[in-house]
């Protein structure tokens, strides 16, 4: 009975196998030989009410063919079961790759990444240090500049004070000098004036004496002449007043 059921199960598989076995280029009618055979076989099985043995008998086919297809088709390897050769090659491939990666590939890449990270870190540190140094230098320069500005400002103030002082001194000195000069000039003028008056008096006396001598032809002695002249001059001077 079991055998019979197995054969019944094998029937559609037999049809399928026939289809696959003869599947090829489509025929002129657009149907492959395999599919045609399968259809005919299915029709025969239906006509004999599922009795494969009867169909096979009619077709003069050895009934053990059912067992053959059952063994080779139903018991075909499951696609989920791994193949030994693929496990061996796949496992070996992974193992070899893993050893290569552990020994060479991974440390090299990781090392390059770490070296780069370290270089970037050290460059950043150096840049930071340079920035701090530059800032320090800048602060230093700024302080010096501020000192220089203060110093210059002080110098300018001192110079201004000195200049003002000098200006004041010079002005005062000039005023003193002017006053002295003015005083000296006044003295000189006065002296010159007195001298001029004395000279004039002497000159006028001489002229007057000469004139008197000519007018009076008198023989006045020199002392009387001088006294008369002085009296005249004083008189003249008093009238000039």
């Amino acid at each position, binding site marked *: 009975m079991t055998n019979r059921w197995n054969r019944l199960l094998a029937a559609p598989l037999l049809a399928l196998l026939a289809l696959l076995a003869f599947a090829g280029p489509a025929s002129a009618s657009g149907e492959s030989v395999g599919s045609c055979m399968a259809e005919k076989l299915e029709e025969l099985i239906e006509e004999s009410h599922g009795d494969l043995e009867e169909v096979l008998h009619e077709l003069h086919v050895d009934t053990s063919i059912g067992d053959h297809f059952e063994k080779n088709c139903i018991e075909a390897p499951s696609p989920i079961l791994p193949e030994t*050769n693929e496990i061996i090659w796949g496992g070996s491939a992974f193992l070899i*790759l893993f050893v290569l990666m552990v020994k060479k590939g991974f440390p090299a890449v990781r090392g390059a990444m770490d070296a780069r990270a370290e270089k970037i870190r050290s460059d950043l540190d150096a840049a930071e240090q340079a920035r701090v140094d530059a800032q320090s230098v800048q602060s230093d320069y700024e302080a010096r500049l501020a000192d220089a500005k203060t110093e210059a400002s002080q110098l300018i103030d001192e110079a201004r004070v000195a200049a003002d002082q000098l200006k004041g001194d010079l002005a005062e000195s000039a005023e003193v000098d002017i006053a002295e000069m003015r005083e000296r000039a006044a003295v000189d003028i006065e002296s010159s004036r007195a001298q001029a008056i004395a000279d004039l008096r002497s000159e006028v006396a001489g002229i007057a004496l000469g004139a008197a001598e000519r007018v009076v032809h008198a023989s006045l002695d020199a002392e009387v002449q001088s006294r008369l002249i002085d009296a005249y001059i004083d008189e003249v001077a008093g009238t000039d007043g």
Partner: protein
Amino acid sequence: MNVLALEFPPISHLFEWPEIAFHGTFYAINKTVLIYIAAVVITAAIFLLAGRKTGSLVPAGVQHVAEAGVTFIEESVVMETIGEEGKKFMPFLTTMFFFILFSNIFEVIPGIQFPANSRMAIPITLALVVWVIYNYVGIRSQGLGGYLKNSLFPPGVPVALYLIVTPIELVSTFIVRPFSLAIRLWANMVAGHLLLVTFAILSHTMFTSGIVGKVGSIAPFAMLTMMTGFEILVSVLQAFIFTILTAVYIGGSLHPAH
């Protein structure tokens, strides 16, 4: 297989590739194996080339890929799940991420178009390796008794609930985890591959079936294009999920209180 008038290849034809060399041996080479080898070569080449240029301050070329990968694993996986302590697992997690990623991404590489992780070999192998690692880490950091106690009797749970929690924890932590990890990756890649194949066959069939079909093929072709982009995302995402879950399991073994 005839599905709605489409000649669709049997599933086994989409995933089981004929042997190319060493036929019939346990070390036979097929397309899947070649993709594993390509994933190893590509990952190793990226890291070895990137590691060679140690002098340059500004990264260039493959250095970007390798360093972005390492930074991503470190910041988004290790630091988020394990913390500083997890940095010793960086080489393992990075290798795992790139290996899975490149095994997946061949799904959308023209001419290859097959995700190697749609075969169970690597998902289950890696999941079992992860299982060994997180159990070893747990036993080493907490001792066998402490690890079992913290795993099976999580602190903070009312004692009565241990009747329910402990069997669940036993099954989920020690039995289901590796399989869920493996099946998640495998099933996602299988589904993605099937989607791409479906839309590719649909586009091809419609394009070769007359003027109406030619015009109509725009729709499945647009879907195929969109799904190709989506599968790139899935490839990356599944590599990330496998890696981050590994990190979560390791972190859980290191820090039982969390």
